[in-house]
């Protein structure tokens, strides 16, 4: 029998953002339903068995599973219904009705407010259009991590990592610890893509070489990967003739970036072209009223703590919306000025504090973040795109924006 249910807040995706969101919404006293596609909530935290999580959200250093289990324990004490192994088949975001499949049956859920916390996916190898054969042994770092940490399986004997994003660095170390020979990490940019602490703790401490301005230009192997051709690249990422060499490996571990998962909703909700995630305000509301989004589907964050914090805000506003409490105030758009890459949010709502998350376009020795219309400046030294700059502005200080009708964020 098709189950027809009503809920105050429907949260789609039970990773860090979704769990924090469900928890904070429930704490507002509303009924929450959380949809999770895997057999338990936690998202990618479940396979991130290393530490380094929680310093901001819990003021304590935790592993991924510890971070997840704290949120789960807290959620269990609240009014949250979790539907595991569920799949949103269809959704009307304006009417906030979702058709959901799960092994327990099919549900049609009418929600008072929606939160989309679908996270990000790894950029697949295929989309890089790297020439060559199509053997097995080429996998995103997250898949390798899943095999090693949760499935108890070794997916490689001799590996090279392409891309120096954090998960690639973590997996270079993880595979090394399990006896896989990791011959190096390749990065096509002239600077690393991951956090500095991961470069030190995952590569330098284990003597794994990092090759900058280098990429894979061909993959070879019938059946299983046999070798990769690597080349030096110029600043436009074009291979430099005469620099190519072969490396014999049976695995190519990809850490080529994360893509916010927006496609299932992007016909209805506005997407920021630079962040590639949902355009949201600082109340985490999307371009459709009553539909909120938080976490890596808004932009790829560098810390799970930020993701959980944003989920928390989304949950509170979604709960209030579902109760018919109007929490939103006047709004102005935020514009990118010089040197700004990823920027969250895209809209300032005067009723909520402004939490800005910024990624630089390129590494800078030092600089100053300027919130032009607010005349607020924040200096930094050694800024790199991999580490977000966070700025919080109390809502009491946002009023000048009403006269300007906009906020411009730039780095000088």
């Amino acid at each position, binding site marked *: 029998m098709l189950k027809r249910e009503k809920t105050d807040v429907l949260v789609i995706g039970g990773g860090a953002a979704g769990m924090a969101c469900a928890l904070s919404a429930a704490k507002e006293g509303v009924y929450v339903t959380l949809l999770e596609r895997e057999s338990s909530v936690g998202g990618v935290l479940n396979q991130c068995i290393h530490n380094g999580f929680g310093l901001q959200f819990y003021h304590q250093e935790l592993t991924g599973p510890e971070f997840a289990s704290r949120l789960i324990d807290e959620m269990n004490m609240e009014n949250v219904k979790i539907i595991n192994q569920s799949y949103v088949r269809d959704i009307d975001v304006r009417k906030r009705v979702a058709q959901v499949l*799960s092994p327990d049956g099919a549900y*049609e859920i009418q929600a008072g407010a929606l939160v989309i916390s679908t996270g990000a996916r790894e950029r697949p190898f295929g989309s890089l*259009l790297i020439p060559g054969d*199509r053997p*097995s*042994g080429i996998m995103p770092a997250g898949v390798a991590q899943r*095999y090693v940490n949760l499935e108890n399986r070794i997916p490689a004997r001799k590996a090279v990592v392409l891309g120096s994003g954090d998960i690639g660095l973590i997996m270079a170390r993880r595979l090394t610890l399990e006896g896989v020979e990791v011959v190096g990490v390749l990065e096509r940019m002239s600077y690393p893509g991951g956090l500095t602490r991961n470069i030190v703790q995952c590569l330098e401490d284990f003597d794994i070489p990092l090759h900058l301005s280098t990429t894979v230009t061909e993959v070879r192997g*019938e059946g299983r990967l046999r070798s990769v051709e690597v080349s030096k690249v110029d600043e436009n990422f074009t291979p430099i003739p005469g620099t190519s060499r072969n490396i014999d490996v049976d695995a190519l571990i990809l850490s080529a970036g994360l893509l916010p998962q927006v496609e299932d909703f992007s016909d209805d909700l506005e997407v920021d072209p630079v962040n590639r995630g949902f355009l949201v305000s600082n109340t985490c509301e999307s371009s459709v009223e009553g539909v909120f989004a938080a976490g890596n589907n808004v932009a790829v964050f560098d810390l799970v703590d930020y993701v959980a914090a944003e989920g928390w805000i989304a949950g509170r506003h979604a709960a209030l919306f579902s109760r018919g409490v109007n929490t939103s105030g006047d709004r102005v758009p935020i514009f990118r000025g010089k040197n700004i890459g990823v920027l969250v949010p895209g809209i300032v709502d005067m009723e909520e504090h402004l939490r800005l998350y910024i990624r630089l376009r390129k590494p800078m020795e030092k600089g100053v973040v300027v919130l032009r219309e607010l005349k607020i400046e924040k200096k930094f030294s050694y800024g790199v795109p991999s580490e977000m700059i966070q700025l919080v502005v109390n809502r009491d200080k946002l009023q000048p924006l009403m006269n300007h009708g906009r906020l411009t964020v730039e780095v000088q």
Partner: protein
Amino acid sequence: MRSVVIGGGVIGTLIARQLSRFEGEVILIEKREDLGQGITKANSAIIHGGYDDPPASLRGKLCVRGNELYDGLARELKVPVNRIGSIVVAKNEEELKKLQELLLNGQANGVRDLRIVGREELQMLEPAISSAFNYALYCGSAGITEPWMVAIAASINAARNGAEIITGDGVVGGRIEKNSIKCLSLASGREIENVDIVINAAGLFYEKVARLFNVEVPPVKLRRGEYILLDKKARDLVRRIVFPLPSAAGKGRLVVPTIDGGVLLGPTSEELQDFTPQELKTTVEGLDSVRRSGRELIPGIDSPQWYIKSFAGIRPESSGKDFYIKAAREINNFVTVGAIRSPGLTAAPAIAEHVVLELLPSIGVSLKEKRDFDPFIEERIRIKELPFETVSSLIENDHRYGRIICQCNEVSEAEIVQSIRDGARTVDGVKFRTRAGFGRCQGGFCSWKIASILSRELGKDLSEIRQNVPESWITDGKVREQC
């Protein structure tokens, strides 16, 4: 009578199915682990109208007939066929002349629903087409299909009608007595005795198989085509199959909607110098040219955010450029169906008909129709294509319909288990049957789940599960023995 078909692509499987209509024993031998994994797997997946093949050729004759037969395949084998139509675009009056030649050629071949349209109608047919084009040859009978499913469904139906389907084993030789093949030897050591007729549908290897029996056939030439598969989002820009003007090199690099909602760009057409059927690689130059051609036809289609994957396919041809379908002169009971280049997929059902109903009787094979031949296979459930309420009741009876394994293409565990019952033995076997892992995450979230289901259903350890061929291992042993 015992007939043996060598090769389990669309040609071999449809011939085996055609043979299974008649009394006698049918054996199909495919050396790969699965059917339809050679030429059948990597082509443009088009059911061509048949307007550009020379009327006097086998291609001209069999393409149009094959196109017609696809309606029957769709009905009987539940193969997806979508006649979305095709256009060949032209810029100016000079190019328009070429369209008129194609139109006349198509009319001579008996192509249905074929006409030339001007800019206004072209704009309606294909709103995102480049403004450089002012005319098009529209063919309403052209369409798209899922080629490997043609091969898989044909083999399932042939098996249902008594045929034996052997996979993972190839013919390595045989014994000839009195100018007839009597026995075939397989790589596994198995011997197939008392053979009455052998049909060589070995694809890229037709010449190699013919040589095993000292049969002369036109030398095979290999041509490689590179493709780029685009995300479903690209479908907003393209409705029909879009061809540039054909040239001496072939039909050119196209923009083709795929049956599961994506878009394909390509192929290139590069003649390989040596016989290197394993050279299924893509190149920088090839992919660049595919992208460039796509942009020229439909501006905006070459958008990096839509790239899902690139791949290459190899097709065989002979210097005559026509199909080579002939009984051997040297041996009484050996037929070669070779050099099946484009439009081989379209022509395949007509080739099977031609071989079994015309060619075999002409060499003295007498066929007696079975009374109990069943042309149908049961439709495999794809929950993605069913109404919500129907899926809901399916889940009530089998909860595995509610466990979605591939989120990109909405494929349930029940469908994956069914595909394994139907013969899938590898991750690719499941992928090609169910479309699980074909979507935008390219298996990032489901490849390990599919491998686990294969391991469970086949009673094998995870480390024994392969992506496709025996060398394509996925995992190698455990991290910890105890945990």
